[in-house]
């Protein structure tokens, strides 16, 4: 082939070559089972929820479905308990993710330094994450117990307080307590994820930056954070989805109390469907929560793609 080609250029062929075509066919064949599974476990329940949300089916209708249009959604807009639980979820998610992220990053930075016994410390650090949440929740319930709890005992001994605090009985303190428990459990997840990212940053970048005249603080902002961005995004998205759907920890520690102060959306939906047997309204709650989650992730993804567009951290070597 020559670049200064003759005037009569060969016709562009649209035929895909055989190898590519065969690869595609095999690709489809291999993904179809997984796609079917995805449809069965995701698309079907969501579709069902959307359908049921336009139906009234509760004890009032003797559990017979009656089409009621957007009645459930109108009811939701006026349902103070729903908005309260949504607000609780937002507060819980935001605070616990921010704290977990900062702590997890700090721990990852420490674990990334070479020191004696690092491997043992690393293993111990992920233990909380490996334990079952229900057990942890029980343990924290006892830790915050107003009469026998460790927290009150410590505070009393240090003479910071002079009578036991009823942690789980006070609306604000109950929220603080569940956030502390959640942070304790999931910080290791973030730190291990970020540690993997930190370890993939080559040392010579830091050395080159030091020779360029950077101090540790500047290297953190100009090298570590931008190159850690992919892991940060993954950690935050995962944690956002998990924290927004938190159920077991809250159910065991406070059951949503006191007086609904820690009732998250997931708990409210659970009660609506399983306790009040209000299937139609429960489905409407699911649909709205689902759409809000999708919206939040989409906004986050959009913002991050813009950040990463200007500071892409990828395969440079």
């Amino acid at each position, binding site marked *: 082939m020559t670049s200064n080609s003759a005037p009569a250029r060969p016709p562009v062929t649209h035929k895909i070559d055989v190898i590519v075509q065969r690869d595609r066919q095999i690709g489809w064949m291999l993904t179809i089972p997984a796609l079917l599974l995805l449809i069965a476990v995701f698309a079907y329940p969501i579709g069902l929820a959307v359908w049921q949300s336009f139906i009234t089916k509760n004890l009032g209708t003797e559990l017979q479905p009656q089409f009621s249009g957007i009645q459930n959604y109108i009811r939701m807009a006026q349902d103070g308990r729903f908005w309260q639980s949504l607000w609780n979820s937002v507060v819980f998610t935001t605070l616990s993710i921010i704290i977990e992220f900062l702590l997890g990053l700090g721990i990852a930075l420490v674990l990334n330094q070479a020191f004696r016994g690092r491997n043992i410390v690393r293993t111990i650090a992920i233990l909380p994450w490996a334990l079952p949440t229900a057990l942890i929740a029980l343990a924290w319930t006892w830790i915050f117990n107003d009469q026998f709890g460790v927290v009150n005992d410590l505070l009393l001994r240090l003479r910071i307080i002079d009578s036991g605090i009823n942690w789980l009985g006070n609306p604000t303190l109950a929220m603080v307590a569940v956030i502390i428990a959640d942070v304790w459990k999931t910080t290791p997840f973030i730190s291990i994820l970020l540690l993997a990212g930190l370890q993939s940053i080559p040392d010579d970048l830091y*050395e080159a930056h030091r020779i360029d005249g950077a101090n540790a603080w500047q290297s953190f902002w100009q090298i570590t954070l931008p190159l850690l961005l992919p892991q940060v995004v993954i950690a935050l998205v995962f944690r956002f989805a998990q924290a927004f759907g938190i159920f077991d920890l809250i159910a065991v520690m406070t059951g949503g109390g006191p007086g609904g102060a820690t009732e998250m959306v997931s708990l409210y939906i659970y009660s609506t469907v399983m306790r009040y047997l209000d299937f139609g309204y429960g489905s409407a709650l699911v649909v709205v929560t689902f759409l809000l989650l999708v919206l939040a992730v989409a906004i986050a993804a959009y913002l991050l793609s813009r950040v990463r567009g200007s500071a892409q951290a990828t395969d440079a070597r």
Partner: protein
Amino acid sequence: MTRTDPTPTIAPSETQQAMLELRHLNKTFSPSVVPVKDLSLSVKRGEFLTLLGPSGCGKSTVLRMIAGLEQPTKGQVLIQGEDVTHKPPGDRNISMVFQSYALYPHMTVADNIASALKLRKIPEEEVRQRLREVSHFLGLEALMERKPSKLSGGQRQRVAVARALVRRPSVFLLDEPLSNLDALLRENVRAELKQLFESQQAPVVYVTHDQTEAMTLSTKVAVLNDGNLQQLDAPHQIYAEPANQFVAGFVGSPQMNFLTLPCEAGAARLGDRSFPLPPPLSHARQVILGIRPEHVRRAQPGDTYTFEGKIFLVENLGMHYLVSVHIQATQQTTYTLRLLLPSDATWEGDSLQIALPPETIHWFDAETGSAVRQ
């Protein structure tokens, strides 16, 4: 190529001053890992010093101590007469090209090059000016907005060099900057580097295990082995007058022939010939004869030291044949010798009359390995 910025005129006294000086440098990682034992040397303005040695001999460690990335166990590093042993890398006014190039993957080429200037709070106008100069100088103009991942190996190498040049440092440090390039590109870039650093005033310390790079680029070569300086000389001297058997064997390709010969009465015997030895070796019982393959030739009438060689291997190197022969010295001892013959050479059978010109022979003390000159 010319320098675009006017260099200040240098007073004669300043020319003499060592830009970089190492005094009794030692690095001990652990009692058994001592890659640098006791190294002293100095580099003046305009010099190009190469640290040459086999893998693991401590070349990078020396460079990293100069850069301040590694703290010497003992000894001092002086830059422009100032003791910088305990200064952080950023305060030493050196720049370094890493073997991996260590380009910041998330920054554009321009930001990579400008990083040091920005960290030093150099005014933006000057940063832009210097970026323009250096990118023009190295032909990087079209690449300035790209990320390193979108560059070829040769282009990345250039960016790494640009990042070093833009600093206008007191000393340039380069750690095997060519080893990630393919053979052909390496030759081109080597020639470019030579021109480029000849146009700079600041001295260069260049680490390599490639003797061709060392010979072609340097004004001075320091051969390192076992944590010690084996020889510090101009490249042609390293080749012509190696200080010891290690240097003689390490520099030059194909490798120098070494024959351990018995001696008596101040002469070394090889078969029925005897070579008079230089006086310091007159009482030795054994001695090592060294001769480069390119200096062994076919015997001509009038040659004194001629031998019959039995050919057992012929390798075609393109420009030459590398011929390996056995020399039967006595009933029990045979010696192996390799010689280069021109590609148009012909011979019959497997026997070759060869001559060892005495003026090309190197003598080494069999015990210490040091060279003994005539």
